[in-house]
């Protein structure tokens, strides 16, 4: 707030000096009876302004001391509460993380038994184990994908499990399947790539990244189907591949594009 007396003080000499000098100057210049000079009037005003300001400051200080939240007791209690809440939150998070880790280790042990059943059990046992494995959610996707590379019963059981995951973990499933199809280091067999194409269609993976991957793979297959060098390139990037795998991949891609309503012509 603008305060005229205050600004007058700041803009001129110190108050004590003005009070001492100004009246004598006035007396000598007129030589008559002393009358109330403007300088004397200013000094009184300034004094009262200063007094007012001091009083205001005193009242303000008193008022500010009265706020409940500025008390010493409150600030110490508040800091204690904040510290306790933070500690509680942190402990909760740590406990949760520890429990999750414990659960993961336990899940891995349980999953191991199911994976043994997929690889050694009969066709029905393998299928039942693969579907049971899906209860572990996204954790079951990598081992099921790995099983696509083995014998037909094992691969078909894994395929069934992966299709079941489309109900609960579609995002993770589609993303992982896309990664498999993108691989060009002979990591996966031609038979497993064909199965992945089939699952992408059945699981309704119509996200933009998956469609792009499928289109790129279809272009790759088109080149393999058209010429000798294209086939050699396919064999160098996909394990255990022959020309018959190219034909099969074409059939599966056509079917998957139909399911996903994607226009593509071989």
């Amino acid at each position, binding site marked *: 707030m603008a305060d005229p007396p205050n600004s007058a003080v700041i803009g001129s000499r110190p108050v004590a000096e003005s009070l001492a000098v100004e009246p004598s100057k006035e007396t000598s210049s007129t030589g008559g009876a002393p009358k109330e000079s403007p300088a004397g009037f200013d000094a009184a005003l300034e004094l009262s302004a200063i007094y007012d300001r001091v009083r205001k400051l005193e009242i303000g200080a008193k008022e500010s001391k009265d706020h409940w939240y500025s008390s010493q007791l409150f600030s110490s209690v508040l800091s204690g509460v904040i510290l306790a809440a933070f500690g509680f939150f942190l402990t909760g998070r740590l406990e949760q993380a520890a429990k999750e880790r414990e659960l993961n280790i336990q899940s891995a042990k349980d999953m191991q038994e199911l994976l043994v059943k997929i690889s050694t059990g009969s066709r029905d046992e393998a299928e039942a184990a693969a579907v049971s494995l899906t209860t572990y959610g996204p954790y079951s996707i990598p081992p099921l994908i790995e099983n696509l590379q083995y014998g037909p019963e094992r691969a078909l059981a894994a395929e069934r499990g992966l299709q079941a995951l489309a109900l609960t973990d579609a995002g993770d499933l589609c993303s992982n399947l896309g990664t498999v199809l993108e691989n060009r280091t002979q990591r996966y067999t031609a038979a497993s790539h064909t199965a992945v194409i089939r699952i992408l269609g059945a699981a309704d993976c119509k996200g933009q990244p998956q469609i792009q991957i499928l289109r790129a793979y279809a272009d790759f297959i088109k080149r393999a189907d058209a010429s000798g060098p294209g086939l050699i390139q396919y064999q160098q990037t996909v394990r255990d591949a022959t020309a018959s795998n190219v034909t*099969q991949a074409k059939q599966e891609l056509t079917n998957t594009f139909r399911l996903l309503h994607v226009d593509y012509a071989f």
Partner: protein
Amino acid sequence: MLTMRSRFAICGVMATVFAAAPFCTAQTQCSGVSGGTNYKVLVDEVEFATATGSHPALSLELLQSSVEGALEKVRRVVLTRTVSPASVVYLPCTGRHPQGVSEFTDTYVRTMSANHAILELWGTLFPLGGDQHTFDIHYVMFPVSSVTAPPPSGIATTQKTMASKPTPLQVKDYFVDARSDLPAYFTLAAGVQAYSDHKWDEAAPLLCEARTRLKRKPEQQDLMKFADQLASKAGAELRKSGDPAGTSLMSEAQAQDYCTFATTR
């Protein structure tokens, strides 16, 4: 987070699978099917079916080696002019005995075909009363079944009635008899697979051999025609490629009927 509906769906699928499992006969897996580009022949068990259950009619090792010997002999004779024929692996599938053709679903057949499995065979001996037995041999030709339209049946059965309970040696002899169906179905399956793999010089003679063998079987005329047509297609491809076997010298008309050209020249 799982929604309630998703949980019910998973539980439904699991319940169905577990409920169905006891009613289905456990089917043992055959190891060695995946991996490699070799053509694979799966030799399953031949069993005696009895009221109390079933048991193997002969040792699987003996059966597998006999099948391998018989079929490799046929292959060598047929592929004398082929420079580098594909290798064939004969897999003994211990404990495996499919209950019927219903087990060979479309997806299963396609998966087998993707792994270059060409043929699976198994047998069952049923007592008919007295000493009489009937011997059923089943063949599944995976490349034939996975061919696109029009698909001929790639599943076949041979049936023989025997006056007395056969000995293991008799079972083996009947199974791998050179005049039996096994060589015909093998050459057809291997020929179709070779055709799919663009191995024209291997496909054409194998398919012509299958055609000749199937001609004698009135009930398999569809398969015979299929083998004949595919052999002609392989012949046309051979003519285009100008292979050293001399097929480039044949006319277009001769290429249209490749098996007649190959057998009469």
